[in-house]
């Protein structure tokens, strides 16, 4: 076994393409030792709702998913956003052979969110001080970021101003 030869390899790729009508096409593809799968999703903008979805799934040891595309149509109208995973799981079910499909739909949705996030991040200044202020202001504008990761954790320099404002608010 210990011959440095790969036992298992996984490649997952997600891409998001804006279409002429402003909607977004998100595609998640998976190729690993056992699996070849793809999910294609059209997201209507600015509502961020799944407007079209299709997929394919082949796996070495899991049963074929009967009517995968029919099952995926249950997701039409679901909004890409907070809380979507529980909705996707709830609508598609949690059978073993659907695990990866659920995950890939979620990844395609994350691709859309990250595509929109990228647009915001492109506005960050290059100058170090201004860049710091940009991110400090971002957490003030979107409190959901606060204490959600190491960068915006309690006590982080990026949240110092926010915490000072909170303390001042509490004292009033």
């Amino acid at each position, binding site marked *: 076994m210990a011959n440095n030869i790969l036992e298992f390899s996984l490649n997952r790729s997600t891409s998001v393409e804006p279409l002429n009508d402003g909607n977004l096409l998100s595609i998640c593809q998976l190729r690993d030792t056992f699996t070849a799968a793809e999910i294609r999703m059209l997201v209507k903008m600015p509502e961020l709702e799944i407007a079209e979805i299709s997929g394919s799934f082949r796996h070495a040891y899991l049963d074929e998913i009967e009517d995968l595309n029919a099952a995926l149509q249950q997701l039409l109208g679901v909004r890409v956003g907070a*809380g979507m995973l529980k909705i996707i799981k709830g609508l598609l079910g949690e059978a073993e052979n659907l695990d990866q499909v659920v995950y890939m739909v979620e990844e395609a949705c994350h691709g859309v969110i990250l595509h929109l996030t990228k647009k915001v991040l492109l506005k960050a200044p290059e100058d170090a001080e201004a860049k710091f202020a940009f991110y400090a202001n971002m957490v003030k504008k979107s409190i959901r970021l606060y204490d959600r990761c190491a*960068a915006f954790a309690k006590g982080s320099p990026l949240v110092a101003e926010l915490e000072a404002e909170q303390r001042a608010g509490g004292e009033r």
Partner: protein
Amino acid sequence: MISEFNRNKVINVVSLDAATLAVHGILDDSIYSLELDFKVRIDDLVCFAVSGRWLRWTTPECPEALKFLAQAEGFCLEPGIDEKIHKIIGRTACRHFANLFIECAYAVRETVKLLHWQQAQADGSELSLKDFLQRGKPQEGVAGATERSTAAANKVEIKADSAAAVAVDGLKEPAKKTAGNAAVGKGGFVIDLHVHTSPASPCASDSVTAMIIEAKRIGLQGICLTDHNYLWSESEIEALRRKHDFPVFRANEIVTEQGDMLVFGFYEDVQGIIKLRELKRRVAAVGGFIVAAHPFRGFLTFGADDIGLTREKAASREMFQLVDGIEVLNGKVTETENGLAQEVAQALKLPATGGSDAHDVSTVGFYATVFTQAVNSEKELVAALHKGNYQPVKFR
């Protein structure tokens, strides 16, 4: 065709020896680039020697995430570990490292299945991979101690009056007033209509007792428990009311395909996802009331305003034809998102409510709903909601 966002992940798993795997993961996308390395014991799927590396990141503080990756030491990578990775690595380190870790954990489980099959073949088995795994299920319950996030797991037993439920985190109950709380104060009768408690809502961190004590301390006149797909019993609520001499109501935050709904006066134990249209049918049949919870809850770095969602577009969502009211002040969303909800409620002439969406005592009562009349029972609460004599308020 121009792809404007790309994310590529590569995970490789190698056998170090008969008992150990080495995992190397790469996540490289339009925004971030990071790597993760760790080892795993094949017999129990426990990982160790976790390390990471940033190649590209965003904020000046992102590099701090690396020091928190060690918290994954000892994780058992069985199915069900994803939520723990999200909670611990995602929240303390970085959600992108968590995403990569989850991908690696999947690769590890698949590798172990492959190794078991290969071992069986070496031992003379002629079963195909599929037959072997379907007959043997070798990886079910390797260690048996992994947290599994299932709907059933949410059905925790909560005894409202038991000592076990009184995890009050150092809070002391204020002295009981001789006059009850069920009277309209100067500003009206103020109820926080959206409160989560632990353990009924797995995402909450404070107990119902702690929440009630804090609600009394800050001067609320009632709270409504809206635990996720969790139905409190009438007797539990009555016990809480009596014990704390405080109006406690129950509702339910139910997940539909169109988002979360706060449902009042409806006592079916709904698990999983229900279609909003079906929920509406059932709730209307018993005279209940549905409020669209945080309808424009957005994202971490951008909001409805960034994507050009106008009031007209927002108001045209099918959801608003099926709900009885809209939560326009929610403590977990931005001012812009609450503002859009307010505009939509006004445009559609739907009643508007407020609630903290508190998951711990520090935020209970942040927003609330002020009623013009005292509300003494759930029946009265539902009647008051239908009547419409209330408005959302910033309370705390």
